[in-house]
């Protein structure tokens, strides 16, 4: 039988005013298990804690109950106090007779009565307390960053600068991501490549960063501190150790393919680097289009290569690496504008998206920076922009705002006017949302200095007459229909999650919302973390963002990851689930309700009637369990329990509350 002590706190007059603390302490002496009980003015103060420690030693207490404020306030204090008295910190209970009693009940007699009930409850629980300890898990001091756009690059550089090894992985064969496709950046109009490429090179040359491009994550096992990640490195058919990046193969390759990087506006070869500033700047062979790999004829690149780097025999390589933490920075896809039939997207070559226009404006793009219509190469004069295409449109399943479009349209209108002073931009908008430092000013300049004409209203139809696109819409501010004969129409296509975002989320075991954006652990207070410990988010994969926000989140993710890696070991929670293997039937119902994937099946062998038998039981991973208790309720055989909130403890509390 445990020897329990009871300490009733007055909290100055906070409790004592509406509760007879002395009476409560007196009544408690008769509770089963209580061998000592007293009251004192301030239990949390130094003399109060000393009083507790002295009583523990003098009365040889196994545990104690403090009746005071909320355990959310002082439970850590009294646990530490127990430790100093030589007790296991989990042998104590704190019962809330201030926030939930003295402060809310003015009637002193009733308050006293309730305090006694609550105290009886806590004593009943404390009698069932068992010493608990937290276990430790070693941490692998390496991070994996999935996705090497600006967010991934920034995360990798920050983690690496903090002295940890990072693997920066991308499925494309150059790092750079979406930002590499962008011509200029708002609101300063500095060229995207000029600020991005130095970062790409820095990442590539950083001694702590290992770049793994043209590779994908196919499986993730393990848990926080120790993720075992299976990576498939796609065959490049070029030996990077031998290749010097001279570019001769690209020049001679006879096969032309429409370039993904140029949004289909220009050609590339079957052996190619996607853009001139690519990192690594060595080509790969696109097996889907290479004549040699398809039907064994050609082989020009192999013949021309001065270093014999071309290797048609290369195969995909699968490696398994261990990482302590993972940062997901997989970015976004541009909304598929062909879903807007009324805009003729896909039918009319001169109805393009913002990213197309970026490529048309870029000096190293398919038109060398001259804005020309994709259909006939003519220089457009009247350009119409339509905003919120694939954003804020419930009918298209995209009710959210893509956030960056208002600003990039303003940027496009400004740049077009600069390049072609005779041109005129018309911008159809629903609202203009330019929240952000210097953003509103930029938008104003677009209107006032760069002659961008903003028309509030939706466009209902676009159709072709001759070589003009007739844009028919409504100016809802004056309530009149408008019709513009445009040379070029740019749809400000919104952002949407990567087509395979959900598949990756399932591989990683992180959650995602109805659209496929990855869900943060808390929308306000944990915007970087996922529900899976050790996995963090950076950039647009969590939701639409512009570049500064992506970079900020990337650095934040790096801090989170570094914080985890800098610990030698992780301490797991003490109050977590535990499976009683003797009772467990191995049904696995607990596995299905665990939000943290913390429960696994394992085989145990035991001797039954002289024979060794194997059976399956559930086992809780202390590194992952957060102690929610969902498994305990689902367990048909009561094998699952939460330490500190066991079935026996809660039932004892129920019994004590009902027994009056």
């Amino acid at each position: 039988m445990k020897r329990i002590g009871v300490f009733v706190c007055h909290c100055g007059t906070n409790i004592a005013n509406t509760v007879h603390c002395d009476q409560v302490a007196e009544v408690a002496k008769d509770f089963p298990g209580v061998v000592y009980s007293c009251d004192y003015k301030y239990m949390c103060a130094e003399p109060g804690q000393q009083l507790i420690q002295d009583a523990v030693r003098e009365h040889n207490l196994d545990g104690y109950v403090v009746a005071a404020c909320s355990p959310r306030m002082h439970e850590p204090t009294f646990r530490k106090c127990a430790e100093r008295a030589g007790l296991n910190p989990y042998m104590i209970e704190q019962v809330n007779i201030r926030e939930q009693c003295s402060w809310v009940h003015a009637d002193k007699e009733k308050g006293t009565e309730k305090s006694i009930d609550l105290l009886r409850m806590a004593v009943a629980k404390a009698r069932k307390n068992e010493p608990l300890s937290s276990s430790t898990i070693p941490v692998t001091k390496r991070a994996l960053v999935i996705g090497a756009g600006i967010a991934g690059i920034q995360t990798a550089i920050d983690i690496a600068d903090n002295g940890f090894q990072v693997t920066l992985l991308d499925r494309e064969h150059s790092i750079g991501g979406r930002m590499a496709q962008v011509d200029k950046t708002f609101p300063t109009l500095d060229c995207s490549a000029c600020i991005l490429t130095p970062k790409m090179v820095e990442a590539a040359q950083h001694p702590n960063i290992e770049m793994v491009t043209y590779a994908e994550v196919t499986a993730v096992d393990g848990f926080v501190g120790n993720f075992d990640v299976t990576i498939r490195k796609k065959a490049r058919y070029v030996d990077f150790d031998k290749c010097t990046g001279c570019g001769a193969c690209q020049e001679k390759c006879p096969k032309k393919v429409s370039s993904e990087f140029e949004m289909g506006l220009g050609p590339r070869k079957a052996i190619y680097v996607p853009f001139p500033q690519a990192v690594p700047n060595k080509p790969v062979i696109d097996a889907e289009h290479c004549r040699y790999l398809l039907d064994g004829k050609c082989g020009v690149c192999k013949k021309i290569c001065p270093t014999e780097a071309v290797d048609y025999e290369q195969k995909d390589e699968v490696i398994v690496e261990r990482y302590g933490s993972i940062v997901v920075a997989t970015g976004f896809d541009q909304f598929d504008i062909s879903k807007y039939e009324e805009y003729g997207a896909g039918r009319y070559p001169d109805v393009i998206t913002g990213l197309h226009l970026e490529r048309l404006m870029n000096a190293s793009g398919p038109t060398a920076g001259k804005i020309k219509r994709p259909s006939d190469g003519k220089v457009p004069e009247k350009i119409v922009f339509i905003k919120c295409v694939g954003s804020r449109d419930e009918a298209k399943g995209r009710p959210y705002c893509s956030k960056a479009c208002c600003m990039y349209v303003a940027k496009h209108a400004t740049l077009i006017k600069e390049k072609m002073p005779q041109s005129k931009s018309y911008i159809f908008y629903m609202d203009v949302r330019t929240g952000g430092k210097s953003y509103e000013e930029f938008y104003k300049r677009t209107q006032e200095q760069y002659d961008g004409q903003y028309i509030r209203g939706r466009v209902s139809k676009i159709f072709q007459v001759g070589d003009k696109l007739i844009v028919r819409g409504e100016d809802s501010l004056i309530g009149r229909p408008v019709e513009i004969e445009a040379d070029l129409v740019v749809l400000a296509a919104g952002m949407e999650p990567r087509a395979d975002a959900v598949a990756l989320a399932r591989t990683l075991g992180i959650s995602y919302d109805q659209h496929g954006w990855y869900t943060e652990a808390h929308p306000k207070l944990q915007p970087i973390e996922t529900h899976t410990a050790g996995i963090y988010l950076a950039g647009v994969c969590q939701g639409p963002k512009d570049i500064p926000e992506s970079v900020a989140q990337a650095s934040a993710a790096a801090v989170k990851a570094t914080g985890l890696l800098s610990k030698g070991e992780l301490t797991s929670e003490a109050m977590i689930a535990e499976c009683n293997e003797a009772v467990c039937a191995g049904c696995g119902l607990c596995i299905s309700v665990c939000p943290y994937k913390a429960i696994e099946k394992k085989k145990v062998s035991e001797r039954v009637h002289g024979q060794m038998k194997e059976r399956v039981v559930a086992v809780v991973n202390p590194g992952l369990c957060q102690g929610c208790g969902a498994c305990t309720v689902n367990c048909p055989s009561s094998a699952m329990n939460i330490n500190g909130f066991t079935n026996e403890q809660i039932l004892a509390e129920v019994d004590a509350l009902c027994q009056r």
Partner: protein
Amino acid sequence: MSTVEDKKQTAQDWEPNIVGFACNWCTYAGADLAGLSRMQYPPNVKLIRVPCSGRTNPQFVLRAFQKGADAVLVAGCHPGDCHYSTGNYFTRRRYLLMQRLLEYMGIDPRRFQARWISGSEAPKFRDVVTQMSEEVKALGPNKKLREEL
């Protein structure tokens, strides 16, 4: 005559005993906030702190009625706000079913409530507790499922 009056007097004085299961993150915090804001409510509901409303095994509810509780409250974060992301969805499903079962067994649905009270909803906590106390007081002591004393 006097005995009837006595009985009336006893019924007037009778106070229900209500067991509450409060999730640590929302409802328990909401109850603490009610205290910090010095809100007043009847002392009939006594809270048992659980990590998550989804930790509340229906067995605990049945045990409370068996041992003499007049009503039981299970309260946690609003659906969608669970600290453990999905715990209260289980609570919601489980206790819709539970309430129907209890009703079938003859327990008035007002004696068993599952409510969503966030950490900032101190007034809601006060209102739920007050309303429940008043309703159960009007219903009188629970006799169903109750163990013979």
